[in-house]
């Protein structure tokens, strides 16, 4: 349902989705990021993913923290309300917003500094609460906006432009998320849109907290040799494990899958994710197995990507709370306030 009378023939050449919108209708303001920044590619993937899902833009709540990555919600879905929270504090904003009105699509964009340094506590606790949202970490291993300090995702031995090496172990958002009980955990690469778009779509459709860690090189401060978050390094160590094909509700699964290598998982809204194992070792529905798999590949310095863990049965914040299935924004008035007051006072005499 859309309120907007769309100018009928704009972009006549562009395909329209189920709502009659073209991808242009999912765009936002002009990016002010550096030319070549990975984050801009993710923005493009998001636009495409939302268009492909026939999402009504104004029914999305876009949220972010502070950082170059956190600027991006201004660059897509111009018809959606957006909020730039404080640095590292988007998860709490998202939690409160979702508590108030769980009916919207919640889309959070964060950075590695934003989520793993200042925001680590909030990130972890939003996962625990299983807030129904898609949470992207645009991970470049540095603080882009403050000009290139190491973030908590920098690998041991990774160097700054000036050659100083990081000596602290990285916080891996994927491992963290799985071990905290996150029900949808994936990793992608800004340079691989083909893999990324279905991951985003699946994440948006997942009921619960869906986290995608996206390696997204910072061309200004972390794309040099010696960096383990550069385009070159990521491409070299890129290791796709599970490909996810997203199939909208009631659409037939058309592609042919090799036996034993494809697992269809139905999501709560009737859509399906077909998990295509590129690496047969990995069962993305077995938590212990997934952790062990990741840990082994971590030791080999490989960047394992794809939909790494999925549990579709978890209950989200509202399910745990048994909230009424509607927005709470206008719900709180009591017809019988006077009686309630009197009932209370009867016990106070």
């Amino acid at each position, binding site marked *: 349902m*859309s*309120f*907007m009378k769309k100018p009928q023939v704009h972009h006549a050449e562009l395909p329209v989705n189920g709502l009659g919108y073209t991808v242009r209708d999912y765009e936002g303001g002009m990016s002010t990021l550096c030319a070549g920044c990975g984050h801009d590619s993710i923005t493009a993937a998001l636009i495409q993913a939302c268009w492909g899902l026939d999402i009504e*833009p*104004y*029914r999305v*709540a876009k*949220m972010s923290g502070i950082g170059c990555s956190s600027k991006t*919600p*201004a660059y897509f879905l*111009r*018809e*959606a*309300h*957006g*909020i*730039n*929270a*404080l640095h590292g*504090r988007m*998860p*709490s*904003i*998202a*939690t*409160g*917003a*979702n*508590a*108030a*009105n769980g*009916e*919207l699509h919640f889309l959070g964009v964060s950075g590695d500094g934003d989520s793993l340094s200042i925001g680590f*506590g*909030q990130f*972890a*606790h939003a996962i625990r*609460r299983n807030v129904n949202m898609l949470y992207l970490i645009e991970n470049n291993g540095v603080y882009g906006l403050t000009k290139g300090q190491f973030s908590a995702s920098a690998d041991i031995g990774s160097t700054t432009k000036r050659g100083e090496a990081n000596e602290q172990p990285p916080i891996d958002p994927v491992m963290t998320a799985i071990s905290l009980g996150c029900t949808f955990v994936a990793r992608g690469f800004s340079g691989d849109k083909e893999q990324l778009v279905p991951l985003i779509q699946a994440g948006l459709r997942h009921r619960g907290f869906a986290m995608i860690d996206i390696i997204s090189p910072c061309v200004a401060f972390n794309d040099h040799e010696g960096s383990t978050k550069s385009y070159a390094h990521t491409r070299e160590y890129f290791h796709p494990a599970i490909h996810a094909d997203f199939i909208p509700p009631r659409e037939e699964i058309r592609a042919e899958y090799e036996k034993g290598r494809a697992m269809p998982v139905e999501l709560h809204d009737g859509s399906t994710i077909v998990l295509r194992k590129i690496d047969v070792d990995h069962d993305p529905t077995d938590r212990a197995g997934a952790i062990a798999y990741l840990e082994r590949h971590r030791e080999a310095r490989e960047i394992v990507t794809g939909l790494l863990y999925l549990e579709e049965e978890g209950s989200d*914040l509202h399910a745990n*709370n*048994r*909230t*009424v*299935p509607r*927005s*709470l*924004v*206008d*719900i*709180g*008035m*009591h017809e019988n*306030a*006077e009686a*309630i*007051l009197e009932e*209370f*006072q009867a016990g*106070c*005499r």
Partner: protein
Amino acid sequence: MTGRVNDFTLKIATVNGTGSASANSLLMKAIFRMGVPVMGKNYFPSNIQGLPTWYEIRVTDPGHLTRSGEVNFMVALNAETFAKDHAEVTPGGYLLYDSTWPRTRELDRDDIHVIGVPLARMVNHHFVDARTRILMKNVAFVGALAALLDLDLDVIEQLLTETFGARKAELVKANMEAVKLGYDDVREHYDCPLPMHVRRADMTAGHVIVDGNTTAALGAMLAGATVGAWYPLTPSTSVMDAFKGFCEKYRRTADGEREYVLLQAEDELAAGGMVMGAGWMGARAFTATSGPGISLMNEFLSFGYYTEIPGVVFDIQRVGPSTGMPTRTQQSDLMECAYAGHGDTRHLCLYPADPAEAFHFSMRAFDLAEHFQTPVFLVSDLDIGMNEWMVPELQWDPRYRPDRGKVLGRDDLERLSGPFRRYMDPDNDGVPFRTLPGVHPAGAFFTRGSGHSKHGTYTEDAAEYQEVMDRLRRKFETAREHVPAPLIEYAGKAFSADGRRPQPVKYGMLTVGSGDSAVREARQNMKAGGTEIDYCRVRAFPFSDDVQRFIDEHDTVFVVEQNRDAQLKSMLLCELEVDADKLVSVLHYNGLPIASMDVEAAVLDHFRKAKAS
């Protein structure tokens, strides 16, 4: 100090975790039920079990619901604090102790009456189970007091029945046995009642006994708060416990679904963010915390001010700085709340004086937050929040309609021509229109704590930035006459030149929040001594013009507040046009609620000094 009928203070010294809390409430409630006004203050330690704890009950037919500052009857049941408790009794007063362990050496005052009751011995004799023995000792002293003070045993039994309910009749029986042990022993050994005792009266009808955290929580629910976020922090925790209790009762649908969400956050910083997130979405949201939590929320308060997101923060003040004394009271967050956050920020604050006002101001806070699109503080304190107060029954105003402020709905947005502009000032009151997420595409805008223009777009432009800041200041000015006005009472009867209010006397006394009743009693006492003083109680920030006028029309204004640094006075000086000489601080900040005697002594001292110089 003999015949103080219905006018004395009783203090009970015990150890926490021994069930004394319920014994103390029982005592207080019994007096209330006998129709005599009563005040109760609980001084409990910051641990779970085994440390000293006191309960002070003032029986007060003059209706002074505040600490007098003296103790006329001490029930000294804690060996650790016995010496101090013994010393605290007013000459002519009484001390009751557990004579199972005679303390002849320590009882070295001859100006007080000592009453020994072998509580432990009697109770241990009568009850077998260890835990029961501990609990019943505290019930037994209630019995002793009942005899000494002439409390009605039927009332006590009735209260016990209400507490335990019909299903636990055996508990009522056991408790009454313990009461009787104390009662009978004392009647056997002492002339009962004492000259100082309680006499049935009819002065508590139309009143209730409530604490301010519970009433604030009820206010939040009735104001329509649907999202609460918090992190446990004494003395604010019971706000959320009460809110949850009310919501579980009144906010579940027939099939048990909740029409509210209560979020136990990972810390106060997150709680602040949750309130902002819910407020952005359009729900009425709040948190309850105390000083350390406010400190942690500073960044979000600055954010909420600048992005203009509504939200309510209950600050139940306790003793600072830092962890301070978590179970003692103070008014030391006044400035922090008013100016919380970096940059030029200022927040609306409401200052209730007692649980009744906490109820009304709690509701008001939600209306103001949405009307002015900004975080609003309810600045309460431990004394109001956690002590049981006798207050007039709360009245529901049937005309109450929530003020949701200027929100453009779906239809408004449908009609909108041109893009929505978030931060304009269409009505010249500094208050812009807002829109909520998910309502209509035309309402979309990007909320940001970074520089923005009146259109809601990102800016680094000097003039665009300043324009929004100036409007925010205008908005705050508009609020000045919207927030609760101060409560002003004149001593004199003669009217001022313009005939609109009584002619002021020379002196004024100004206070805030829980200082109210102590100031009132002090005023009354001083009036009896021939000194008349006008009274003003500030009830909100920003201060309205009435506060300015009150100060203007007096030569000297005593500013009574419960902090060391004269924070209220500082705010008056910052915000109004006041001659600093006029304001004389009366400061009290040792963690106990201010007593009328503290106020009186300070004021009289000032007069003495002024005369001398």
